[in-house]
């Protein structure tokens, strides 16, 4: 049975740590347009925190609310929450959203998830089992196909276990590096760099440069490399000397809980391991 992810310390929850770490890695995206989709409570907090710290020029599209650059102090649970549109600077109609993605080069980054992810970052939202007789029918592809095909993106998962991080997904609904190597570039534009980082309650991962295999980048406080390997369903590249994900600084944490998540949604956010 899955157990709740360790909160790391009394000071912060693992969801809060994930949001803070995500925010730091958005520094390289400063000045570009990206966005979040469904179930993106943690990424929404991360984007807002990045804007307050390392990436003040981010432009972000807040999924179902259609808001561009919303400003909230009460973190919404989903991008469809009307609260996710307050303080916005513009609205993006549905069709513009697809336009933004399909046009290429305009959409810089996004946060995607899935029911399964494999060692090349391919994701599955379609289902588990043969299509004719699915064991679990998934919720569907949404916009992950275009956002994964046409840009760089980040993956995040609420749970870390061998059923979610697998050797090969049952269906590809959004492309990572396909079969690894340069196979992605057979279909996707070279400027669309694919999955950059993978966030879970247990660790942060990225992809090896040439083979594009999943690689451990840092282990979240409270866990070890062995914990990660044991709970991962595919082979993982482990670089020598991989360290821990840095804890939130006082400034990051204070901004998070006063200016973004004043209702403390992330404090008790349900994540699991195993």
């Amino acid at each position, binding site marked *: 049975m899955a157990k709740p992810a360790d909160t790391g310390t009394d000071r912060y929850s693992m969801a809060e740590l994930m949001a803070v770490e995500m925010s730091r890695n958005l520094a390289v995206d400063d000045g570009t347009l990206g966005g979040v989709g469904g179930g993106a409570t943690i990424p929404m907090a991360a984007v807002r925190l990045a804007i307050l710290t390392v990436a003040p020029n981010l432009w972000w599209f807040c999924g179902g609310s259609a808001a561009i650059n919303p400003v909230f102090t009460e973190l919404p649970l*989903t991008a469809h929450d009307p609260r996710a*549109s307050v303080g916005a600077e513009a609205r993006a109609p549905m069709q513009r959203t697809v336009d933004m993605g399909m046009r290429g080069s305009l959409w810089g980054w996004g946060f995607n998830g899935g029911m399964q992810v494999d060692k090349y970052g391919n994701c599955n939202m379609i289902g588990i089992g043969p299509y004719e007789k699915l*064991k*679990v029918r998934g*919720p569907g592809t949404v916009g992950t196909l275009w956002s*994964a095909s046409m840009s760089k993106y980040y993956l995040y998962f609420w749970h870390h276990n061998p059923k979610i991080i697998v050797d090969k997904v049952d*269906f590809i609904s959004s*492309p990572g590096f396909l079969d690894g190597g340069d196979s992605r570039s057979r*279909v996707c534009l070279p400027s669309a760099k694919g999955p950059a980082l993978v966030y879970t309650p247990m660790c942060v991962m990225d992809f090896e440069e040439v083979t594009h295999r999943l690689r451990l980048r840092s282990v979240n406080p409270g866990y070890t490399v062995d914990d990660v390997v044991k709970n991962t369903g595919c082979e993982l590249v482990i670089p020598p000397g991989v360290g821990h994900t840095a804890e939130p600084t006082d400034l990051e944490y204070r901004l998070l809980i006063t200016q973004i998540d004043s209702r403390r949604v992330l404090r008790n956010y349900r994540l699991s391991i195993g």
Partner: protein
Amino acid sequence: MASSDSATQGGDLPPQRKSKEISLRQAGERIAAAKTVHAMNSAMALVRAGIRAGAKNLTVIPQVTSNLSVDLLIAAGCVEKLYISYIGFETYGFAPAFRRAAEEKSISVVESDEAFIVLGTRAAASGMPYVPIRRIYEATDLPRLNPLLKKVLDPFTGEETYAIPPLPGDVCLIHAQECDEFGNAQIWSGNQQEIDKAMASKFVIVSTERIVSVDRTRENVDKVTIPGYLVHAVVHAPFGAHPLVWARHYESDTAHLKAYFDAHAQGKVADYLEKFVYGCKDEADYIERVGVRQVMSLMRNV
């Protein structure tokens, strides 16, 4: 309006502008008579009316992220085919009726995605024979699973592209915050997918929290999201999105949603449907069954 002025001239009264208001029951009958439905999530009162009126064998084209409105139609056995982009409750989990029906094959699923639904709807809305898109679908399993995706050559570059077909509908269900009796509707915090769905459909029904005068519509024309010429019928339906969240009106009713999930988990969906759909005389009755106190508690923070 000057028409009242001309009416004072004596003689025959001039023709008057006609209201599009119909009852929720009439709207339900219209839905039950349809084959293909473009549905927005929040049109819950219309969905309940359609179920009550005996809708059957529907093909449903939902919004790109859908949840209860579609799941309830499936739970009530109204759906034959579903175009899927996303159906689920995000952080709350899977859509229970959908998951079961899809796994049991009691509904058929067209394996679509956001672009397929948005662009196919655009094609139907705009008279485009089809929408060509770059071959990114090839990076996924969708072309294998969705036979409606066809290939076509780009006549300018000679490159292979995919073609998405038009997705027209018989009836379109939309909930609005404000709408005048001529169909000019305001959807606050929406993403304007509604207008393409409306243009793609033969008959458009707008339910609305509040029916306002056309003078009020004119006061803030930038907020009008659906022009009335696209709308065929207007239904007065306060709390018409319950138990879903409705911007500037009420929060999501998580207790009620939990009751819905629990009904599924416990095999008591029929009881839920009897209590909250079939058994309700009308939507006022529905709200009384949900509980006025409960509904009033949702009217904050939104």
